[in-house]
């Protein structure tokens, strides 16, 4: 039954329709019916010769009836009754404030058009102003009479429709004033499910001239010393095709492009360009890609895009050279080899020139020590080089030692570990290796009884180094000291002349002193040039594994110590004394930035400052865009909140502090994506708005000047009051009826001669 009546002041329409409940709908039901019919006909043809002519009609009728009943029960005929009400609702206004509304056309910007329309709609609605919402990346309430700056980095129309109805359920229809450049999608589905009528006013139609970077990307994570790919798609709108130069900026090159490509872009089309960049430092790397802005460019903002990647190591490449097999070498190799992120190249000297192997070379598994190959060709490919109890002279390595020094000064890491063949015994004091070590090695002529000691000792953390991450192996210096005191003692020390200026001695002998009077260093580090150097003046740290394990039940200390040391050598930034980080890598314009970091000296103690430290945001041109003071806690750490810049691009947040007049700096790049993808394609989309109106039974208007007054727009809302489904054969009685008819037919068939 279909009909309309007025109930409680509103029009209620009841609509009924038949259907079936079988999967596949009417088509499936029809096919099933045809199959049943064929089976019945075949069955009746077989029955013809077995029963008398008088009884055949009765049996045939029973077969047809039973088949029909089975078919009906199978397809389940259903009556659907929908009761819908049309009710008068309020008309809400949705105004697009996304950045694409700032796009300029020859007649002005889309936003100008929107403001004109809003003023016109305001007239006559002062006494009963409609609900107004500004939408873009978010939706918020607004008013027709106030300005509507277009700053949102996204256009999410579906979310705006839902948000408006949720805010005011009395809304029956909305009118959307927008350029239609919706980036969220699903607006039609949202309008249909909400049951609201959507009127649309398309703004910004007209010719557009724009060159822009439609897409730009770089891998979120890139690998150190491996090329990363920067990709960009350049779009041209409203001009004949032609070449567009694309420039890539980044690294330390400042305003000088590091690469340039020229792409041929067709009229109203796109072209892709890609660059390979080499990444030589860990952490975040910032790049900017740009094209020139042509005369009359509608959106200059999309001519420049900032890209950020995080540079990590894929594998740590370690060269481990040991002068003889020993437990110390065995433990270090075990540690290095177990780490799946390590590419380990080992060379151990298994026999010296004086050993008597009692065998031909063909019976030995020994290979030559490829010094030239390692130290001339491949040295630069290693992140860390270990010389463990290694004497260079027997292998004619004098020529390679300056290369190792250069390798470190250019950013490599070097560790020398003690033993009877190391430090003064090997004569490093007289080589260029001395220039990269944190300690002064005793001359080779020093008697062994002076250059080494063989007593047992427990090293102590050097004064001032209590908070250094290499030796603070507890939650605080006190528990760390307890841990050190509980370890198995070391045995044997390579004595050095003294620690060198700029070095940090982290562990010392508890009683022995150098010739210069300082406690004998056991562990010292330094940073020669751009590299890192670590010296361990003993060959018994392996005792922090098995020997400590036997005494305390915990054999993990060796690994904990060397893992830290390795991370420090590998420049793990989390071990840097001065660092600044942001909670995110990408921000919207003006977004809240949580900045944290540490400001400590080389010993990792809080820095004593002459003036308060501050955080500064700078752009590519070193212009200061914002600053906040930094308050350090007692450990030298800080937390701060800043506002991201209002413009798109790549920036650095920089930690600036004064200590004795010297600026201490750390910085971290980040990106503000105000332009982002919102302006990647600035073209208006009136077709999308028109489709939305049609689907929701609203009206569509092309241009602000064609839009009617708000009072003329239909604000009625179609609301479903309820739906009833009736299935007459969905009962046990229907099943009993089917079984009854089938039973009667079966009995009569048997009695009358059929089977």
């Amino acid at each position, binding site marked *: 039954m279909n009909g309309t009546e007025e109930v409680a002041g509103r029009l209620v329409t009841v609509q009924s329709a038949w259907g079936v409940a079988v999967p596949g709908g009417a088509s499936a039901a029809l096919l099933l019916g045809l199959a049943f019919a064929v089976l019945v006909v075949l069955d009746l043809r077989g029955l013809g010769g077995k029963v008398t002519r008088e009884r055949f009609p009765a049996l045939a009728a029973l077969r047809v009836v039973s088949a029909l009943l089975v078919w009906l029960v199978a397809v389940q005929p259903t009556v659907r009754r929908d009761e819908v009400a049309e009710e008068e609702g309020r008309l809400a206004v949705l105004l697009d404030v996304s950045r694409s509304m700032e796009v300029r056309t020859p007649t002005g910007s889309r936003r100008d058009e929107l403001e004109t329309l809003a003023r016109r709609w305001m007239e006559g609605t002062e006494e009963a102003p409609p609900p107004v919402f500004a939408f873009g990346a978010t939706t918020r309430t607004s008013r027709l009479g106030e300005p509507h700056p277009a700053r949102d980095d996204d256009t999410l129309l579906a979310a705006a429709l839902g948000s408006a109805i949720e805010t005011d359920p009395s809304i029956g229809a909305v009118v959307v004033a927008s350029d239609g450049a919706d980036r969220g999608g699903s607006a039609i589905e949202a309008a249909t499910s909400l049951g609201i009528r959507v009127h649309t006013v398309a703004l910004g139609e007209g010719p557009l001239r724009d060159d822009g970077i439609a897409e730009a990307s770089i891998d979120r994570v890139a690998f150190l010393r491996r090329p990363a790919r920067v990709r960009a798609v350049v779009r041209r709108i409203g001009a004949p095709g032609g070449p567009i130069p694309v420039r890539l900026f980044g690294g330390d090159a400042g305003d000088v492009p590091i690469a340039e490509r020229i792409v041929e872009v067709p009229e109203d089309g796109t072209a892709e360009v890609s660059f390979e960049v080499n990444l030589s430092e860990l952490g975040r790397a910032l790049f900017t890609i740009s094209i020139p802005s042509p005369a009359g460019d509608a959106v200059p903002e999309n001519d420049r895009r900032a890209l950020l990647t995080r540079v990590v190591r894929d594998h740590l490449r370690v060269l481990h050279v040991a002068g003889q097999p020993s437990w110390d070498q065995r433990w270090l190799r075990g540690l290095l*080899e177990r780490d799946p992120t390590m590419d380990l190249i080992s060379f151990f000297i298994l026999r010296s020139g004086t050993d008597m192997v009692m065998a031909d070379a063909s019976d030995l*598994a020994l290979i030559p020590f490829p010094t030239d190959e390692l130290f001339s060709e491949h040295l630069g490919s290693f992140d860390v080089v270990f010389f463990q109890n290694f004497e260079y002279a027997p292998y004619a390595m004098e020529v390679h030692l300056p290369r190792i020094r250069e390798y470190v000064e250019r950013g490599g890491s070097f560790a020398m570990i003690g033993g009877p063949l190391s430090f003064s015994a090997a004569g490093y004091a007289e080589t260029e290796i001395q220039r990269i070590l944190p300690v002064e090695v005793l001359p080779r002529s020093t008697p062994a009884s002076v250059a080494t000691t063989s007593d047992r000792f427990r090293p102590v953390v050097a004064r001032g180094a209590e908070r250094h991450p290499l030796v603070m192996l507890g939650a605080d210096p006190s528990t760390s000291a307890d841990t050190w005191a509980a370890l198995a003692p070391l045995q044997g020390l390579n004595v050095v002349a003294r620690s060198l200026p700029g070095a940090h001695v982290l562990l010392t002998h508890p009683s022995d002193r150098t010739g210069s009077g300082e406690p004998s260093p056991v562990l010292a580090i330094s940073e020669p040039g751009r590299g890192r150097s670590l010296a361990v003046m003993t060959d018994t740290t392996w005792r922090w594994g098995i020997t400590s394990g036997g005494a305390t039940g915990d054999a993990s200390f060796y690994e904990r110590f060397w893992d830290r040391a390795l991370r420090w050598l590998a420049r793990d930034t989390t071990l840097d004394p001065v660092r600044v980080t942001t909670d995110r890598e990408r921000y919207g314009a003006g977004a809240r930035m949580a900045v944290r970091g540490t400001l400590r000296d080389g010993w990792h103690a809080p820095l004593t400052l002459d003036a308060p430290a501050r955080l500064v945001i700078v752009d590519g041109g070193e212009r200061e865009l914002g600053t906040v003071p930094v308050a350090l806690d007692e450990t030298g750490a800080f937390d701060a909140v800043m506002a991201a810049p209002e413009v798109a691009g790549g920036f650095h947040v920089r930690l600036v502090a004064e200590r004795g007049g010297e600026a201490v700096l750390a910085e971290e790049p980040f990106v503000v994506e105000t332009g982002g993808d919102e302006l990647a394609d600035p073209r208006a989309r009136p077709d999308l708005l028109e489709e939305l109106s049609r689907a929701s039974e609203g009206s569509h208007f092309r241009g602000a000047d064609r839009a009617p007054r708000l009072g003329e727009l239909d604000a009625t809302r179609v609301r479903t009051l309820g739906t009833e489904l009736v299935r007459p054969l969905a009962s046990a009685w229907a099943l009993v009826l089917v079984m009854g008819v089938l039973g009667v037919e079966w009995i009569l068939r048997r009695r009358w001669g059929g089977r």
Partner: protein
Amino acid sequence: MLARTITTLAAALLLAALAPAGAEAIGEASAFDVRTIEYTGGNFRPRESAPRRLAWEVRKRTSIDTALEPSTARLDDPTIFETPFLSWTGDAAFEPLSDAESSALAQFLSYGGFVLIDDASAEGDLGFDASIRRELSRALPDAPLAELPNDHVLFRSFYLLERPEGRIRGPDHVEAITVSDRVAVIYTRHDLGGALARDNLGNWEFAVEPDGEAQRERAIRFAVNVVMYALCLDYKDDQVHAPFIMRRRGG
């Protein structure tokens, strides 16, 4: 007899003169100690001179610095954790280890220690073998002894060898227990110590069968390889060594 003694002394002096002037450890902890496990019952030192001879051969043939007077210790002695190598030898059944000894053995191996077990029994005497299997399965119930294939890095850690040998030719394999991806226990039933043992005058204490002195040399090489493996692990499995070793093996 006098002539033989003089010859032996002369040979010993010559070897001493040729001994490597290699680097000596700066503390006793750095030197490789072939420490023998003492236990109750049976005979924990059937080849008394063998540890010292092994230390000597390793020092003479390789760059490893060894303690020439090897020590002994019971497993429940806390000092077993002072040096990560233990030699467990015998030629007869022995009494079960105490709980403390058994648990110390398990700890020693899990912390990175290495044990070489050498059965010096006369052929057919299974007393020591039964005792060893009993104690290993008790200390390391989840890590059974398994046959070590002869292409394991142990057979090329220093010398290129085809199979294990000792005073007797014995089985063509050794057994091993793997802990945390490394072989932590090697069990040989070849009387390795019998091939190494020498008296103070340098005379071999036991005849090697069936291949005489050539087999003795191979046995010494195998013992050196065991020490080299304990210190270098699978170093010789590194890719950089593969082409050289393949060439020498004729591969």
